[in-house]
């Protein structure tokens, strides 16, 4: 195993004493196969135990170690030291307030998440005796990709529209709404559109596509949002057809749509 020494520049912020964030550089001896998270752990263990950051699984599953690495939103457990130069710059995720050091405030997204009703909605729940809601592999495949989100929020740090307008519901939450809209067991699209088809929903997106490029789980929120724009546009026109024609088309073409 070979070693490599890096200069790790970390943006520090102590809410009790600091007016503004400031940069601190640590010299870290790294193993060849280390990821940036390992280097940060080294700083915490050997150089400065006051450093605050979130991490848990070290294997791109928990979604808690997201940060800006050389200006790019990344999971620090997935960013290999060997892919960078001698100097690596680490900052908390963009577009979120800094709680302390590399820890950001996630309240905004956590508040938005339940608003799109990310759970299966039925017009009428089937009695338990009648058994489970069955789903074919094809029906599962329809939405599986959008269910892979680990809420790491790299997409929010990458999305300039969220950075400019915090009201925007944003990539991950919209993708999750799409995941339930596409679920064969669900009948809640109309209810979700109250949020997703509003200005602050899909219409705040200008399709920069950055969310999908930085997503570590290939969820592709940009695709979900574009598909929702098309669906919302069709719904908008259908809702305006005379004599209940729109509702009839909806119930014929899209049987699992609720009129409520």
């Amino acid at each position, binding site marked *: 195993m070979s070693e490599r020494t890096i200069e790790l520049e970390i943006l520090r912020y102590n*809410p009790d004493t*600091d007016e503004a964030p400031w940069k601190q550089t640590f010299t870290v001896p790294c193993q060849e196969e280390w990821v940036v998270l390992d280097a940060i752990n080294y700083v915490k263990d050997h150089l400065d135990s006051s450093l605050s950051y979130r991490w848990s699984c070290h294997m791109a599953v928990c979604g808690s170690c997201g940060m800006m690495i050389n200006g790019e939103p990344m999971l620090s457990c997935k960013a290999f030291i060997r892919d960078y130069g001698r100097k690596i710059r680490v900052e908390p995720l963009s577009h979120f307030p*800094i709680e302390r050091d590399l820890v950001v405030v996630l309240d905004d997204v956590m508040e938005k998440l339940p608003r799109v009703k990310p759970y299966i909605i039925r017009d009428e729940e089937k009695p338990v005796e009648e058994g489970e809601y069955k789903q074919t592999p094809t029906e599962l*495949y329809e939405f599986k990709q959008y269910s892979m989100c680990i809420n790491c929020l790299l997409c929010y740090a990458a999305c300039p529209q969220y950075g*400019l307008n915090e009201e925007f519901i944003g990539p991950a939450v919209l993708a999750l709404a799409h995941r339930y809209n596409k679920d064969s067991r669900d009948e809640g699209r109309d209810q979700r559109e109250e949020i997703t088809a509003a200005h602050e929903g899909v219409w705040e997106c200008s399709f920069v596509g950055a969310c999908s490029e930085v997503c570590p789980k290939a969820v592709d929120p*940009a695709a979900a949002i*574009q*598909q929702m724009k098309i669906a919302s546009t069709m719904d908008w026109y259908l809702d305006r057809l005379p004599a209940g024609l729109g509702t009839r088309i909806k119930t014929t073409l899209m049987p699992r749509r609720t009129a409520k």
Partner: protein
Amino acid sequence: MSRNPYVRTVSPTTWYMRNGRYIRYILREVSSLFIGLYMAGLAMSLMRLAQGPKAWDAYVDGLSSPVALVFHALAFVFATYHAMSWFNVTPKAMRIRRGDDYVPGPLIVRAHYILWGVVSLVILVFVGVL
């Protein structure tokens, strides 16, 4: 311990200079200015055509002016960039079912490029040869 989160601000006028991805995006968006101006000109040319030979010939002569040529050269570059950026993301907006799976994205993109080539050829033949 009290909370005192630090809010970093994003410049509403220069944010797109932050990285190459945003610059490519803003160039795509700026293509609309050139395409819009070009189309406004094309709309006016239909008026010229309706006004008779004199108005039309003056319009066609104007096309050879250096200003018009430079503008059209720029507009051509931006329109091509718009077309490529549009076709490259078509698989995101349209998912086409084929049996149990979806038609692969690159195939959808390639189909668009082929159709683009055909349409372009038809337009060139129409304007130039007919």
